[in-house]
């Protein structure tokens, strides 16, 4: 009668220690690009309403893991994923899962701002339109406005919604891409080095935004900047050569890591 599944136990433990519940869970995730293995049995949990940072030197597999979370690796024909990834205890690699629906629930922001060559309004309304989220023009307008507001871009663009999105500055373009991702009301937002193409001022704005978004969304961010990981994330996972080296609360990872490789990497001794 009192038999509890592993997930239930974890749930219990999480609430007891005041930890948020687990949103996404990776279980022995491995990725192969053709013959080459890029990721080795990664077990990693992503917790609700937290920012999880993935760090590690280039080529360590952190972007590969991120792209598994919304099956973006499907677009690479030679990529093969093994293991299990769940979103709210549902296996996202299950045959019954519609990948289009999954990506609507797990949105993505890319390294380089990639607004479509359309107007700002059309960029944001693109997702709601293809998913049929708006009931009419007024509803669509409301979604566009609230998405741009959440992305802290509304005040800068409200008078030129019908100008091309490509005409914005780099930082504005990246916030437009975040607004575009928010517009489909995802539960999880994946960010692949979202600030690497931005200057420090734009970076600060996007980081501030990430911190605000945490309230409503679960965020996973890949970053090369240790300071950024320390500033925006609650949990950090360190990857090296395709293995998950260490994972834990950001405070602990940056002050007292268990693994020497993590220590070396965050203090700049390699990578």
């Amino acid at each position, binding site marked *: 009668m009192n038999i509890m599944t592993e997930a239930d136990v974890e749930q219990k433990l999480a609430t007891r220690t005041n930890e948020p519940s687990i949103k996404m869970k990776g279980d022995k995730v491995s990725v192969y690009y053709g013959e080459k293995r890029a990721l080795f049995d990664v077990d990693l949990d992503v917790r609700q309403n937290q920012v999880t940072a993935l760090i590690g030197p280039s080529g360590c597999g952190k972007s590969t893991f991120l792209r598994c979370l919304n099956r973006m690796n499907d677009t690479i024909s030679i990529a093969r994923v093994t293991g299990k990834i769940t979103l709210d205890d549902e296996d996202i690699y299950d045959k019954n899962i519609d990948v289009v629906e999954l*990506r*609507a629930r797990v949105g*993505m922001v*890319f390294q380089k701002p*990639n607004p479509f060559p359309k107007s700002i309004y059309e960029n944001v309304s693109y997702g709601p339109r293809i998913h049929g989220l708006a009931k009419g023009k007024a509803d669509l307008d409301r979604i566009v406005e609230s998405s741009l507001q959440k992305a802290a871009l509304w005040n800068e663009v409200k008078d030129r919604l019908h100008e091309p999105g*490509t005409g914005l500055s780099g930082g504005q373009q990246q916030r437009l*891409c975040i607004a*575009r991702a928010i517009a*489909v009301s995802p539960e999880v937002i994946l960010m692949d080095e979202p600030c690497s193409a931005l200057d420090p001022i734009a970076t600060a704005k996007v980081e501030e935004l990430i911190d605000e978004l945490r309230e409503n969304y679960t965020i996973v961010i890949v970053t090369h900047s240790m300071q950024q990981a320390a500033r925006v994330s609650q949990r950090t996972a360190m990857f090296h050569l395709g293995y998950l080296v260490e994972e834990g609360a950001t405070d602990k990872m940056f002050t007292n890591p268990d693994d020497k490789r993590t220590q070396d990497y965050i203090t700049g001794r390699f990578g």
Partner: protein
Amino acid sequence: MVTYLVFALIALFLAAYFAGRSRALTSVDGEISKLHSLPGQHGMFLALVSVVPALLALIVWSLITPGIESNIIRSSFANELGGLGVPQVEAFIRDARAIAFGGVVGFTDATKEAAAALYKTVHARSVWIIVAICAVLAIAGFFWGYGRIAPAYRARHVVERIVRVFLIACSAVAILTTIGIVLSLIFESLRFFQQVPIHKFLFGTHWSPQSAFTGAGTQQGAVDPNIFGMVPLFVGTLLITFIAMLVAAPTGLMAAIYLSDYASKPVRAVAKPILEILAGIPTVVYGFFAALTVAPFFRGLGESIGLGVASESALAAGVVMGIMIIPFVSSLSDDVINAVPQSLRDGSAGLGATKSETIRKVVLPAALPGIVSAMLLAVSRAIGETMIVVMAAGLAANLTANPLEAVTTVTVQIVTLLVGDQEFDSAKTLAAFALGLVLFCITLALNIVALRVVQKYREQYD
């Protein structure tokens, strides 16, 4: 003699190269680092200064001597040729040259023999003169260059300057040829417009310089400007081009979308070259495919549903021409679709768009300017295409928009006007130049528009 001269210059080129190279080496006792330029550059310098002036002299000589020689003949035989017209004098000189150097001669007489003998001596003298000039230039160039070679001499700069001049000359040949062709088109067209008013040519609706025995300017009698109306040809060209684009635009575009976004790598590696082989089939082959296979097929099809289809129909020619330009459209569109950054496709997929949504709503709009310009280039290709329409579209200049009837095009009429051995100064033959000029203006305008569109598109992504 001249052949030997060319071989001698080639030999001198090689000899001078090695001479210059070894002199440069000995001047520094084999220590190459003391030379400003590499030994090979000194060699090339010496070879070029020895041979190039002589070669230029030879080229100039071969361009001007035929004129000078025939002028000498003409003035020597001024009395005998006094009463003859221009074509007869030219024929006389042609025959004299043929007798002197071997060739086909219509008939011969004492005057021609005498002229031939004079021709021979004059030519022999001019060959000796050019050999002497070349020898002097080559020897002078060689010794001048040989004297200049020294460790500090900047042979590389000289060689590179000469190479640059050579490259400029090559591109000038292409440009000057184009300008020459356009100018000849314009001047011949102006001659035509002196006989036929330009507005009657551009806006007239009746075209029959072939069928009319009078009025075309080939026989005696006045030119009738009313049979030179190009509108039926223009309409026929547009009709066939329109049918061709109706076939090629959707097919080519869909093929390009498949190749760029759906095909796996191995399929693409095989399918793309095969599609491009279509472009390598000679258009005359398409022509008999159209005339012997497609046209009878359409006629049979038309008969079976009770429609009268001409055996040379605009439909058959247009469909086959469309098939011909499919690879043109697909290959150009494939390039522009591939040029749309992968990041845009990822961005769309990351929002949960399906592949076809991504292509319809992101990729194609982004590639649209490039696709439009690909279509315009395909149109200009179709307008200028000749062989298929010659074989499949017919010669009758009907002013019709019915694709089941026979029509004719601008290019077909140019061919038929110039086939045969008329002189090139009647209104009929000059009309071909006017048609060519119109065709040139249309395709030029299309190409300019297409290139402007592409440029604008490029600015967006770079």
